[in-house]
């Protein structure tokens, strides 16, 4: 059902939790299956220094959250904004067709967090 990579991220999710005094916070909900994902950012010099997530969702949702944090960490905000759902899914070696919508959550939550940061800093 899930690839080994999905299961690895699910088993050992990277960057789980909250960031106190986060510079940007993004929360998105999946109207489709009722899941929620939250991403916290710490930004320095336009670079994502730290990132954490919290997810209420299926295995794919948790794995894509974990993967997107790993992919975004160390990137500039502009680079991070270029991450797409498809790239996250590909990073995980693919997702079952019924689970593709879960990967939308991850990239969307990251975008929301970056936008929140930009709004707070008038960028």
């Amino acid at each position, binding site marked *: 059902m899930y690839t080994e990579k999905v299961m690895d991220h699910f088993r050992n999710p990277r960057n789980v*939790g909250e960031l106190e005094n986060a510079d940007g916070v993004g929360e998105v909900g999946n109207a489709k299956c009722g899941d929620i994902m*939250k991403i916290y950012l710490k930004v320095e010099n336009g670079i994502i220094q730290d990132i954490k997530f919290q997810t209420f969702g299926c295995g794919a*949702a*948790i794995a894509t959250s974990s993967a997107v944090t790993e992919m975004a960490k160390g990137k500039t905000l502009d680079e991070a904004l270029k991450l797409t759902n498809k790239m996250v899914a590909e990073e995980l070696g693919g997702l079952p067709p019924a689970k593709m919508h879960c990967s939308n959550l991850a990239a969307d939550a990251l975008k929301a967090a970056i936008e929140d940061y930009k709004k707070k800093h008038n960028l």
Partner: protein
Amino acid sequence: MRRVYLDHAATTPVHPQVLEKMLPFFKELYGNPSSIHQFGREVAIEIDKAREKVAKGINAQFPEEIFFTSGGTEADNLAIFGVAKALKDKGKHIITSVIEHHAVLDACESLEKEGFELTKVPVDSDGLIDLEFLKSAVRDDTILITIMHANNEVGTIQPIKEVVKIAKEKGIYVHTDAVQTFGNIPVDVQELGVDLLTISAHKIYGPKGVGALYVRKGTKIKGISYGGGQERKIRPGTENVPGIIGFGEAAKICIETFEKNKEIARLRDKLIDGLLKIEDVKLNGHRTNRLPGNVNVSIEYIEGEALLLSLDMEGIAASSGSACTSGSLDPSHVLLAMGLSHQTAHGSLRLTLGKDTTEEDIDYCLKVIPEVVERLRKMSPLSRN
């Protein structure tokens, strides 16, 4: 790693004695029971014996009231479409409940699209159907009431005798899906008074791919598929001979060993009590009026599929009513009908015990599940802490 199978409501392993009975029917007793030669006749006799065993298992008066099918799903479809076909000139109103298995619910809804009228009886927060609602829903043109004997997700046992009482006054047929009850609580068609009843072998330590519809003698029903003369033309197609033989044996064993259900219920209660000690965990389904093997809890702030995968990594096989496990986008229609919010329904966990479940299995679950819940809650944006 310990492997603990707690998904007996999904399916059960075949009992060794059942498999042993089946084995000769693959390579030696392979004749087609419709054939009139010795190879066929010797098999036809054994099919009749299996039919008798299944009939006895539900206390049917005549073996001929048992029609073998390919499973519970087909038996449900046959009951509903078969009665609708036979009685459509008498009336076009059918009553079911909101918590039926999809084999019943979707079949009824498809009839609705074809011009039948459908009333769905609601349930209370324990999952019990509203008998008053049912009483007032009955009409002169009602031809069938189909209400399950016990629900597969939450285990609540329905008052089928009361349903039959309401129906009989008006001469309405009653069908009940007893897939989850047969073998677990007494299923006695005389006592229940139903006209049609569905059972499935793979839920009672019999093989997958065989079930049966009980049709009380005199009940009007038509076959819904076409072919040879098997099952008195109500269900044509070469019989799944080893399956039927296995079903007969499984039915026999499960009434002989009925006592074990008391012990299963004791372990169930221990598991329920232990799980309810976790914060923000709620039992779904009726506390006492439930299947001996069924535990269903909602665990707030976490999602069912993630929970199942985590438990699986610890060797525990369970099930959930979460949308994420179902392929559909809504969580379990049963939990929603009982008044749970989408979010709470998402975090449901079903653990169903079987005859081989041990005290150690339960202790293992009560050790592992709280840890897993804690870990997942830490990841959740919803959690209180």
